[in-house]
């Protein structure tokens, strides 16, 4: 019975190709044979992996402990564990280099037989389907890289980490989770190299094609970003790197920390698509193309166009930068682009067929290259597509948003000192700003649209106003009814924003989203301090009180109710009574180090103004025993005063008021020492909430930096003010005396 079963089994295996019982070529044995043939690569990768992982991790763990002799043992162990996981995990430039080098070596060595006709004929005559044979070097190359990697990782995790006392289940899980991802990332890069090899079959061209497939998206995206930022006045960079589908299999892994699922999905798509294409092309690949530069010679003009145009444009741009990058020199850009594209065209043809006579081959695509290399720079130089003047009709827009810092500078300063509420967790990167805009779209967008109109007008016909003092920058997000989103950055004359700001601040939707004290997370702060607006002692440390959860929530609700009620434009022009500073104290060192590399264990989360008519807030503060009585003793040790106006404006001011040594106000400032001098200074200035007056507005902007002695045992601290001059004449005299 057993024999019958075996016979049947053999028969079933034999029917694979239609004839029962015949012995077939063994895929597994071919695979082993190929691995044996490429044992040099296996040995090379094993040696490198052993150096990088077990030896490297040992070194990193030991180095993490060096120089930290005074650190408590438990903390030191955490540092060593952290070093181990970060080294064996995803990060590090060597990781990309390792993936790229391994993929190139494994991919090229596996398919280099396609380069020569005799070798190609030998393998293609084997009794095996082409797609099946394709997977022999494909799989063996993959195993040649992955097996040594896993072996060395196992050695690094178990013997090395265990012997160093940093091994834990969490570490092993973290490392092997990272390894799974690394394998996927390698597979994506490797499959693109295979695609390049079957598209060419030649070692040199295959390598160049691999580089093309791996870096083209990144280079093109970078070039586009560069040109847009140079030539479009309203260009807004949404952090182009976020669009990971655009980018290559090599750069995508860097997004894993931010978007793990999306990154894995993208890598799977890269791998699947590249492998499918590679198999498809391998099947269709005519054997006679061995020794040709490309499997399908018809692809050469397209490849050349794809390469030569961006190379030309980049070269032209570089030339334009070198000759002075002014608007009057655009001709250099166009000329340089055409010249570089012409050279790139010739080099491409020469690489494909190394004969100098061949550089004029494919003249039609050569013409396309030349045309493209002139047309594309022209699009940027002369804004042929009307990028800067684009403004959709209101009926096509669903919602709009305006940038947080604009709202903060121009309106939010009405109710907060520093203009931000709870943004620290989102960071300050450009991409975070675009996310913020997406979250704060308003449908009643007349005011924002008005701002956009001002921005477009300014881009088309720049006004005479210039500089930070008279212009403000604003980013506006358009959400179209079709679902598309566009962001533009505009420069707008400050004096023209009033009407738009009025419209914006009178909109409920806008007020709810842009002044969201009610949305501030009560968990984001645990202490507050209250200071009087005109008291230079500022947010003095001894005045801080700790609030429980209920108190925190109640205070925020009160602030929210009060700040929604006030007229923002009026508030902008008036002075508050108090400033509430919200703090977060990091008691836990480890928690703190996760957030900060900085110096202070206390972090200011936000600061809110309290106006006279903030009844709810003032009642709430009273319940908390605030404002505390300030220490009567003058503890102001001194104040640095410096100018924030331009040198020209300050020079004009100095001439007008007979100030001779005014340059010190620009270079580091003048120090007013002791209470008397500071008191005299304070009589000539007035604290302001924003700096946008300048000499054009008839005022001068100055900064004051107070040095204050801590009360009792408290440490000394500093407070920073923005001021305008209320008595310029006396201010000038005072400065003249002190200087």
């Amino acid at each position, binding site marked *: 019975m057993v024999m019958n079963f075996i016979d049947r089994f053999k028969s079933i295996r034999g029917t694979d190709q239609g004839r029962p019982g015949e*012995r077939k070529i063994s895929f597994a044995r*071919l695979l082993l044979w190929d691995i044996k043939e490429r044992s040099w690569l296996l040995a090379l990768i094993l040696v490198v992996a052993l150096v990088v992982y077990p030896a490297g991790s040992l070194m990193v763990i030991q180095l993490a402990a060096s120089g930290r002799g005074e650190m408590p043992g438990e903390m030191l162990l955490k540092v060593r564990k952290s070093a181990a996981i970060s080294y064996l995990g995803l990060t590090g430039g060597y990781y990309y280099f390792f993936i790229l080098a391994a993929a190139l070596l494994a991919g090229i060595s596996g398919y280099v037989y396609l380069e020569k006709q005799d070798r190609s*004929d030998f393998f293609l*005559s*084997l009794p095996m*389907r082409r797609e099946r044979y394709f997977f022999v070097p494909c799989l063996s190359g993959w195993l040649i890289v992955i097996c040594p990697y896993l072996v060395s990782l196992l050695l690094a995790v178990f013997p090395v980490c265990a012997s160093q006392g940093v091994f834990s289940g969490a570490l092993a899980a973290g490392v092997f989770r990272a390894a799974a991802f690394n394998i996927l990332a390698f597979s994506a890069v490797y499959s693109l190299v295979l695609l390049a090899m079957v598209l060419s079959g030649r070692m040199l061209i295959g390598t160049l094609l691999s580089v093309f497939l791996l870096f083209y998206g990144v280079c093109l995206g970078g070039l586009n970003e560069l040109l847009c930022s140079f030539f479009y006045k309203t260009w807004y960079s949404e952090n182009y790197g976020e669009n990971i589908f655009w980018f290559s299999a090599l750069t995508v892994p860097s997004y894993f920390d931010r978007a793990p699922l999306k990154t894995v999905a993208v890598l799977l798509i890269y791998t699947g698509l590249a492998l499918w294409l590679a198999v498809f092309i391998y099947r269709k690949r*005519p054997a006679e193309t061995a020794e040709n530069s490309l499997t399908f010679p018809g692809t050469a003009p397209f490849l050349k166009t794809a390469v030569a145009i961006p190379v030309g444009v980049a070269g032209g741009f570089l030339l334009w930068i070198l000759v002075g990058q002014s608007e009057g020199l655009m001709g250099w850009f166009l000329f340089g682009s055409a010249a570089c594209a012409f050279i790139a065209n010739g080099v491409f043809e020469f690489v494909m067929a190394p004969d100098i006579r061949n550089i004029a081959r494919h003249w039609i695509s050569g013409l396309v290259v030349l045309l493209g290399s002139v047309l594309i720079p022209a699009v940027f130089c002369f804004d042929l597509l009307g990028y800067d003047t684009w403004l959709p009709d209101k009926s096509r827009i669903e919602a709009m948003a305006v940038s947080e810092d604009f709202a903060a500078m121009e309106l939010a300063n009405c109710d907060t000192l520093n203009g931000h509420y709870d943004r620290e967790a989102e960071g300050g990167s450009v991409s975070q700003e675009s996310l913020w805009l997406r979250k704060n779209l308003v449908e009643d967008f007349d005011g924002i649209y008005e701002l956009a109109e001002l921005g477009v007008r300014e881009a088309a016909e720049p006004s005479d106003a210039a500089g930070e003092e008279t212009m403000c920058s604003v980013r506006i997000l358009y959400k179209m009814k079709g679902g598309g989103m566009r962001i533009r950055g505009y420069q707008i004359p400050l004096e023209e924003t009033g009407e738009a700001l009025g419209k914006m601040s009178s909109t409920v939707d806008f007020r709810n989203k842009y002044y969201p004290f009610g949305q501030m997370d009560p968990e984001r702060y645990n202490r507050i301090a209250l200071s009087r607006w005109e008291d230079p002692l500022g947010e003095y440390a001894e005045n801080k009180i700790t609030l429980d959860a209920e108190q925190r929530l109640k205070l925020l609700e009160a602030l929210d109710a009060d700040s929604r009620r006030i007229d923002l434009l009026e508030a902008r022009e008036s002075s508050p009574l108090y400033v509430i500073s919200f703090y977060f104290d990091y008691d836990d060192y480890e928690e703190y180090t996760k957030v900060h590399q900085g110096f202070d264990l206390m972090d200011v989360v936000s600061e809110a103004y309290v106006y006279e008519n903030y009844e709810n807030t003032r009642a709430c503060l009273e319940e908390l025993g605030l404002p505390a009585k300030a220490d009567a003793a003058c503890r102001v040790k001194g104040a640095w005063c410096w100018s924030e106006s331009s040198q020209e404006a300050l020079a004009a001011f100095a001439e007008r008021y007979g100030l001779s040594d005014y340059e010190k106000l620009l270079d580091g400032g003048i120090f007013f020492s002791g209470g008397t001098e500071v008191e005299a200074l304070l009589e000539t200035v007035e604290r302001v909430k924003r700096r946008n007056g300048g000499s054009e507005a008839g005022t001068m902007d100055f900064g004051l930096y107070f040095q204050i002695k801590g009360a009792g045992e408290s440490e000394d601290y500093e407070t920073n003010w923005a001021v305008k001059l209320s008595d310029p004449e006396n201010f000038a005299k005072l400065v003249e005396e002190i200087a």
Partner: protein
Amino acid sequence: MIEIKGVKKNFGDIEAVRELSADITEGKVYGLVGTNGAGKSTLLRMAAGVLKPEEGKILVDGEEVFENPHAKEKICFIADTGWFFPNATPESMGNFYKIAYPAFDRKRYQRMLEHAGLPGRRKLRTFSKGMKKQVSVLLGVCANTKYLLCDETFDGLDPVMRQAVKKIFAAEMVDRDFTPVIASHNMRELEDICDQVGLLHGGRILFSENLEDMKFHMQKVQCVLPDKAREEELLRELDVLQFSHRGTLLTFVARGTNLEVVRAVESKNPIFAEALPLTLEEIFISATETAGYEVDRLFEP
């Protein structure tokens, strides 16, 4: 049987094979002869399933060969420039052939290597061209496939080895179902071994016939006729493929049986007449000249 039906293959603008049809019958040694660039290698590469014909098809025992592993299992292809793995030895190549052709007879291969005096463990890259050819042939024979396609395999073999290979082929054909197909320029070699010959020229097959039949239907005669008029008359009457003069001695190759040609010559009352043995080379030259490939015109300025 390998059936070649209206096969066409172009390499860019070059027509390598043009509507070629022929049958390679089993149990016979098939010789493929042709001028340089006639399409011999292309035809063999198509028969081995390496190249895909643009038109027509090649059937191996009734199955199309391209991308058909079952049909390709019956074929072992030895290219003119045989390829070995880098650092391979005859022994390691045998191991690979055992994987690629499961019926490969490794013991026999070892024995044959020993008989041929080829060191099994020496790197093949240190072998001479002829020694490499020997290894290729031995690998091909021991692969035990039904058809063995040899492209210029006999070039580079020394006469002793050539004879030995011929013997091996003969023995194989006796022992098992074996059909070698040999492409070569060397007519002398093919003449000794081939049963059937296909003559390729300019991508077309001029004829594909049994060698004995071919010789039966083509005659070479040397004669002296009494006058020029009779000579011209004779050349008109016969289907002459080639003729030449040396003084009054006329030598010609003509189609027809021995009886037909001799009768025609005798009817002209020759002063001297003699039938000469016809070599394959002469058949080749005659046939190709008729097809427009004249040696005299080759290097005309």
